[in-house]
């Protein structure tokens, strides 16, 4: 079965009913999508399917045949963070980091669909995502800043050495 993942055409061998989450993590070794509750309740596995946020744990591979998938790995690189990643870094919106990739992808879709700096609308857009550290205020701050198009100089973000990667599998 064929997919485009983060802009690269991939042929995958997982079975047609395999949840996209496990295709990404186990076959393609992209661990940005987190295996949290694995029943649609936490949002840690959210990826973009043709630009729309979807729980990859609920999505069988056959339902996304031929689709373009974006995972956290497709947002930016450690050297060149995407604006939403810069905003999360600047606003300390990641604590343990487990919910972060799902939240950033939901936030990216919100902004791509014209979402603005409106806290209620942001909360609505992110409402399927659970942060076990309960750091919601800073997460909403970060999404609001990214929606405004704020620019950040992360070299002077106090106490920050930029977002680390690869810590949470």
């Amino acid at each position, binding site marked *: 079965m064929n997919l485009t993942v983060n802009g690269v055409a991939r042929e995958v061998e997982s079975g047609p009913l395999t949840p996209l989450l496990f295709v990404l993590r186990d076959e393609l070794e992209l661990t940005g999508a987190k295996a949290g509750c694995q029943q649609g309740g936490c949002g840690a596995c959210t990826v973009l399917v043709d630009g729309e946020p979807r729980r990859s744990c*609920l999505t069988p591979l056959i339902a996304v045949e031929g689709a373009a998938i974006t995972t956290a790995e497709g947002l930016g690189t450690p050297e060149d963070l995407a604006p939403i990643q810069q905003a999360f870094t600047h606003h300390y919106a990641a604590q343990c980091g487990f919910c972060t990739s799902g939240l950033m992808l939901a936030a990216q879709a919100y902004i791509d669909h014209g979402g603005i700096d409106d806290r209620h609308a942001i909360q609505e857009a992110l409402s399927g995502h659970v942060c076990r550290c309960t750091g919601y205020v800073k997460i909403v701050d970060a999404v609001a800043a990214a929606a405004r198009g704020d620019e950040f100089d992360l070299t002077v973000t106090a106490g920050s050495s930029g977002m680390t990667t690869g810590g949470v599998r």
Partner: protein
Amino acid sequence: MPPIDVLTPTSPDEAVAAFGDGTGVVVLGGGTIVVPEMTYGRLKPERVLILGRSGLAGISRSGSTVTIGAATSVADLVGLSAPLGPCAANVADAEIRAQGTVGGNLCAGEGPEAPRGDLQGALLALGATVRSAGAGGISSDPLEDFLPKRRSRLALDVSFEEPAAGAFANLDRPHTHDYTALAVSGARAADGTIRLAATGAGWWGLRLPSAEAKAGDPEAAGHAALADVQLADDALASAWYRGKVLPVLVRRVLVQLKEIA
């Protein structure tokens, strides 16, 4: 373990043929219920019928009749008028609403911890009819008659007459992941008939005939509704709490209906 037979019909007729009499077939609409059941090993299907490309999605209107295909997403209902629109908006979060389908909402089995089928109350209040396939061919049934046999049928679409007025009131959920703990839907038909139904007051949506009989007196109707339900103690709410809230929601729905000329 033998490989699972995966059926991917590309038209409604193919879906009906693939479902047959339904023996051994698990229907997968959006996957929000079926996929985790498989992930956790609670469901080990031999045959899975995937509806995603079956052409069963979409909302159409003919005069005052609204018809909603079974594979239509819950998100696509959010813009409809009350009670169905606000009822759909109260389901889960935007990502789940975009994935979950109307057919799944009507046909899913009881959840392990709480009732499923958030939309059933609104569709009962609308007097909806379900067209379905299975043993004996295609049939149309009032939703009340369909629900008890929903596990053995392939829902094709659900239709109803636009009401003259509609209303919806719900108990707020502690988290978007939760199913509806309790909600009441009401609709007034063009001839003045009022229908009321509840979600979360039994293992599927229930009409509230005792409350309907007293619809002219919202306070009395609210208390009468308690005779129509079997309130559950479950993970979402205690039976005691549901019993306190149900009369309030019935009253609110009837007051809203009165305010709509």
